């Protein structure tokens, strides 16, 4: 595995704490009594995280669990109380103003939960804003901003002020703005939550397409498990500022690390999470199987109809067309209707 792009260790953000009162042990862990203190809110609590190049990490958790704060610490919009953050091996927290500005101008983009568009600038001007800050020429930034407008499908709206745009349109401006500098690292804080389902789906597809082209390193916050499953390489579940579990979607659903995670995932439609490979039996000699095979990486959701429609078990193949297992109708039914007593 290559060097992580984002790496943080023992990261804390404790609001309302006087820095002088901070006490940390040798591993960078803050003394627990401090976290309990009157008037403090621990929004990020001992977070360790690595995000690899091109990875799309989804952060989930209830409202107030510290997702936005974590992302703000990673972009150093707020100063973490303690801990370390490295971006591409550079110590983010040790950077001076100048370096930080350069980093943001060239490497980072962010989409905000509440859009955060500049009210006095039109859609186009908002998108062009980071480019102007970089000192780009007028002709160039107008052109680039126009491309971004096209990318998010807002042609004809470039001269509208944010207040003249719907919530979804505003968020698309926000997305276009964060993409304008072509960042390598992209933070998105609930970017699609204000969009209607149709547009949201379109944007998600568009997002995947972009990601397959651009291959950015992304930290993406969402409340929507469907969205998470559709996009995620890995999911981190936060609770009270801690990361309860981080891992591939299946791992989280199949092996919840804590009670909280299992409750959090209990309503997740498992056929959307689980892949054929994680529910199949190993191939058994001489078993009669159906003639068409399914892929080991397919989601169960996508093969349900086919498997249930077969009289015989279905062979499972990997990318090299080697048979690696078989799938019985019972496997599918178990995924769709898990009984409470029997863990999947």
């Amino acid at each position, binding site marked *: 595995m290559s060097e992580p792009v984002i790496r943080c260790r023992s990261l804390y953000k404790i609001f309302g704490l006087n820095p002088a009162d901070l006490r940390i042990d040798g591993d960078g862990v803050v003394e627990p009594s401090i976290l309990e203190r009157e008037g403090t809110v621990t929004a990020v609590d001992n977070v360790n995280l690595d995000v690899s190049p091109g990875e799309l990490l989804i952060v989930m958790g209830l409202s107030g669990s510290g997702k936005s704060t974590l992302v703000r610490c990673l972009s150093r919009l707020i100063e973490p109380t303690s801990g370390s953050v490295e971006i591409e091996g550079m110590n983010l927290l040790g950077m001076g*103003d100048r370096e930080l500005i350069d980093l943001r101008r060239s490497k980072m983009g962010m989409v905000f939960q509440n859009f955060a568009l*500049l*009210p*006095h600038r039109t859609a186009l001007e908002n998108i062009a804003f980071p480019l102007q*800050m970089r000192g780009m020429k007028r002709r160039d930034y107008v052109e680039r901003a126009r491309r971004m407008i096209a990318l998010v499908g807002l042609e004809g709206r470039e*001269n509208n002020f944010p207040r003249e745009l719907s919530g979804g349109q505003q968020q698309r401006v926000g997305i276009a*703005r964060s993409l304008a*500098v072509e960042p390598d690292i992209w933070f998105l804080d609930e970017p699609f939550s204000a969009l209607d389902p149709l547009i949201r789906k379109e944007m998600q597809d568009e997002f995947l397409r972009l990601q397959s082209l651009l291959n950015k390193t992304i930290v993406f916050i969402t409340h929507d498990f469907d969205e998470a499953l559709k996009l995620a390489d890995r999911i981190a579940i936060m609770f009270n500022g801690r990361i309860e579990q981080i891992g591939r979607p299946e791992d989280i659903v199949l092996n919840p690390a804590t009670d909280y995670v299992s409750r959090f995932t209990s309503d997740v439609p498992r056929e959307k999470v689980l892949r054929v490979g994680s529910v199949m039996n190993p191939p058994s000699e001489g078993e009669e199987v159906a003639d068409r095979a399914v892929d080991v990486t397919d989601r169960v959701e996508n093969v349900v109809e086919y498997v249930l429609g077969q009289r015989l078990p279905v062979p499972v193949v990997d990318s090299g067309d080697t048979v690696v297992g078989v799938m019985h109708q019972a496997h599918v039914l178990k995924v769709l209707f898990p009984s409470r007593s029997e863990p999947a």
Partner: protein
Amino acid sequence: MKGYAWLGALVLALLLAKSAGLLPAFLDELPLHLEKSSIDTLGDAGKEAYTELVPFGLILDHTFEFMREELGVSLVTRFVSKRLKELIDIFDNILRGGRKGLGLSAPPWTALLVIAFILGYSLKGWRLALLSGGTVMYFAIFGLWKFAMETLALLAAAVPISIIIGLLVGIVAYRKKWLELALLPILSVAQTLPHFAYLIPVVVFFGIGHQTGVIATIIFAVPPMVRLTLLGLQRVAPEIVEAGKMSGCTNLQLLFRVQLPSARNELLLGVNQVIMQCLAMVVIAAFIGASGLGYRLLHKLQSLKLGQSLEIGVAIVLLAVVLDGLSRAWAEKKRDYAADLPFHRRFRYPILLVVMVAAAYLLAPYFPILEKVPRDLTVTYAKTWDGLVDWIVLNWSDGLTNFRYFLIVNVLAPLRDALLYMPYPSVLLLVAGLGLLLGGYYSALLTLAFLVFIGLAGWWDRAMITAYMVVFATFICIVIGIPVGIFSALSERRAKTALFWCDTFQTFPSFIYILPVIMLFQVNDLSAIMAVIVYAIIPAVRYTVEGIRSIAPELEEAATMAGCNTRQRLVHLQLPVAIPHIMLGVNQTIMFAFSMVIIAAFVGTIDLGQQIFKALSETNIGKGVVLGLCVSFMALAVDHLVTRWARERRRLLGLD
């Protein structure tokens, strides 16, 4: 409420003791004071009867003296004054020609006309074009050109300087918490200190003449700008600042391209306030030598030329409306990146402007009327207005005699005597009780401290007279203003009309209506109160209209669906929801009344205002400032209590 019964009992006890002659003198009156008087001996009011228990005035005198002589502040102020004069001379020269400044010759008036017109058109369209062009025409045709240009030159210096100083201070205060904390009380005092109390230190430090008037104007216009800058910056959503940071802004870029523009509404309001304050000061600054329309106005009033004064007043109002309109339109202008226009289209207004101004210059030598409207072609309707005033005086005075008699003898005199009769501890107790009721111990202590200062400064009785005039005027303003506001708010059109008149009257120089009021009511408290009412009623109307018009449409729809008729809607929805805003209007009415009651001393009163005028005449800096503070503190005490209440109310209604 019950818990405060003991306060009431104490007050009652004091009053009873006094009427029974049992009250010891030290609990009745502060040592020396204005002779207690029924109305027929108030003639002796010229006597200066006050003793400071603490010599605030002297302390201030010495402080100012020390600053001036020892710290060398006067060197700085003289220098500033001189530089400012040079700046004003330049503007003055550009607008009026002459030898000063750059030594240019005066532009033809038509050049200004086309500039005003094209500016208005390019910024907003025909209406603004006609308004600003029309205003320039008005100056020329009514023979006010010279004075209007002088005032314009003054504003050209005062308005931008005020805005810049206000912005800078506001920005620094936004960044430095300690400065903000230090500044807020100063701003509060500054915004309630009567205009005339300002003038004395300004004269002492900056000398006399036109530029001193400009400095007074600037000092007066800066506080609202500071306050609104601070407020605006604080209101910018943190996410927007973060978005700026993520876009790679440096600190300066963040400030100028994210924070300030996002605070635009407040800043615009600030600019609007600066313009309004500057225009309000046009007349007042003339008292210390600022020339222009205000000076002209004072001079016309001095020889009782009411009609001409009115025309000058209209000119000042027009100037305010146009400047405000232009600055707003400029700030709201948006650039069109989509249109990739050729040069001559993109710059069509500047080109048009240059062409038209050049035409004005070229044609002027051949058609002198384009250069300057000759005096025999100027018009005036002064005689008509004078005639109208005469008619009113002739026909109404007799009818008003009984009314006047009744009010003075049966209402005002008893009210004043009652306030003067009250032993000072009973007034303090009442105010403290009100503070406790509305805001707890903090409020009680604060308001008490304000009043105690007045007592210690030795101006208790005069302050009571000021207070009684304000109380009575406010009462009338509420009784008339709120119903008028409600009536106006019931239809969109009426609301607009009402707000228009509010704007107009707020910039209309009050000195102009003081004189007709005197002609109708003679020199007495009633005249002063009438003048106060005319001015202070504006916020009562305005806030009522705004409060009702700004109720959320969903609420109105809910009322409609519930089958409310107009009256039910008013009683059950509009008034209850608008009340906190209306209360802010009442608060503003009181503030306006405090500020106007001092100006109304021009009629001839025996309150703090009279003494402020006197101090101004004697250039008595300490006395003037202490008197000003007395007025300011009374206003602040009321302001504190009312805003407390309104805030609490808003919170309860969930309007925040």
